[in-house]
């Protein structure tokens, strides 16, 4: 049997570890190199069971490899305007305690990374923004941001903080046992609060399509917090394997696969991240090509793809129109445990991007029928506060 691609080792030299590393090993995790870190890909129950458990109850994820930082300046407006020079998001319009998903863009409109930007609710942090970026990009992102900061503004890496996600329909109920005030939070909001007596920055957000939290916690209290949450009967540890299948079912992009420096936000179907005011001001990196895409359309677009058979079509699979013409490629492909079959995302020429279009996926030299479908594959169950 050939070694599965996903199991082929990256260089194992000088792998970094998160504060939860010993806990993963003690829990029986299979550890693999990921973005320079030795990370749990799965625990004893395996990817399928972990995925389904997260959709049914609550899963705990160690995402401490991601990059956390404060951007501090003289006041909120200065810091927000600075971040707006690098992203197309409406950062200035963030209410205290609100989180925005946005993109770091290069000057061609390509995506350097996707990130979360939080305007803290706490008056003591009124002059700061909190950002979370991808693990594989963090050194480059922080250097890029730091290089564009005006005098009086600085980036402070939070390498002394771990990041733990609790996701799933039971996440809120479980978390409220340790932090009652977290229950009333709206989706995409953040608050500083004690969780089991530990000072944390709690975001109601996630990467699974489920309700839940992402919790920034001091490194030296991370194991204590993880153990307390794991001791609850609804909670199981979940590895990176299920994290990937959960986010793909939720239609969420994985940086380096579904988006990168060669894709623009409009091609990536992330046009919603570009604020209305930002479109009018046209002052973000790559504004010219991106506004051109908005005005006159794109040649290719990110779409959901549902193979009709049972064979998964992986990243790199070529997409054909059924008449022998190549029309695109898959950027994420897996088995979707909740869907109960293969699912994928990729880019196709715009003429084939309409939902319902029949396409052919070339898997092991054989064309296999598939259809363009709307994303997500699984209904998102984010918590929305009702607008009155």
């Amino acid at each position, binding site marked *: *049997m050939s070694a*599965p691609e996903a199991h082929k080792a990256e260089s194992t030299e000088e792998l970094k570890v998160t504060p939860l590393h010993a806990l993963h090993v003690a829990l029986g995790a299979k550890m693999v190199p990921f973005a320079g870190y030795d990370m749990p890909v*799965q625990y004893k129950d395996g990817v399928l069971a972990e995925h389904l458990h997260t959709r049914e109850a609550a899963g705990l994820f160690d995402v401490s490899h991601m990059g956390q930082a404060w951007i501090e300046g003289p006041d909120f407006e200065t810091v927000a305007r600075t971040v707006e020079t690098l992203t197309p998001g409406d950062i200035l319009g963030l209410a205290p305690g609100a989180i925005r998903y946005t993109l770091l863009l290069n000057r061609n409109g390509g995506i350097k990374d996707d990130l979360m930007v939080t305007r803290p609710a706490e008056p003591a942090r009124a002059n700061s923004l909190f950002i979370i970026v991808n693990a594989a990009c963090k050194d480059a992102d922080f250097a890029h941001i730091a290089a564009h900061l005006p005098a009086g503004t600085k980036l402070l890496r939070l390498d002394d903080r771990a990041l733990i996600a609790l996701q799933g329909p039971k996440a809120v109920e479980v978390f409220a046992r340790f932090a009652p005030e977290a229950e009333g939070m709206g989706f995409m909001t953040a608050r500083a609060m004690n969780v089991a007596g530990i000072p944390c920055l709690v975001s109601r957000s996630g990467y699974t399509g489920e309700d839940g939290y992402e919790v920034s916690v001091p490194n030296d209290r991370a194991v204590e917090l993880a153990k307390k949450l794991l001791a609850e009967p609804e909670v199981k540890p979940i590895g990176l394997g299920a994290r*990937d299948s959960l986010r793909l079912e939720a239609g969420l992009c994985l940086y380096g696969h579904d988006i990168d420096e060669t894709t623009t936000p409009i091609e990536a179907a992330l046009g919603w991240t570009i604020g209305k005011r930002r479109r009018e001001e046209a002052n973000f990196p790559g504004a010219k090509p991106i506004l051109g895409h908005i005005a006159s359309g794109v040649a290719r677009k990110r779409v959901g793809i549902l193979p009709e058979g049972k064979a998964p079509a992986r990243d790199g699979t070529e997409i054909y129109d059924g008449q022998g013409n190549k029309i695109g490629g898959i950027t994420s492909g897996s088995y979707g445990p909740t869907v109960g079959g293969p699912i994928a995302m990729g880019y196709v020429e715009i003429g084939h991007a309409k939902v319902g279009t029949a396409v052919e996926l070339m898997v092991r030299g054989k064309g296999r029928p598939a259809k363009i479908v709307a994303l997500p594959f699984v209904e998102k169950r984010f918590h929305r506060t009702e607008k009155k």
Partner: protein
Amino acid sequence: MSEIRFTDQHEWVRLDGDVATIGITDYAQEQLGDVVYVELPDVGKSVAAGDEAAVVESVKAASEVYSPVSGEVVAVNADLEGAPGGVNEDAMGKGWFVKVRLADKSEFAKLMDEDAYKSFVEGLA
């Protein structure tokens, strides 16, 4: 009585008369994780030793299962198409992939016996 042999790619071959049943070892299924898809060859296909005989996929990735022997595919385990998890549950038994009628029995004799495979796997740890 049937004899069993192993490869360094973690396939097993059980010989009954001139028909070899081929699967992946327990070690291999453990490494692979949850099997969600199995693709089997057509009955009647001829395979040479080292050729791809089947494809096995976990949630994350696809792997090829190589035929350790040459011959003609005389049967495939169609049960795996509907229930691929059988590979995880009983890799050495109900989780077999294909049966091949041997062209050359000496290919079988050259493979590792159970003790040799055991020490091979121990050496990987």
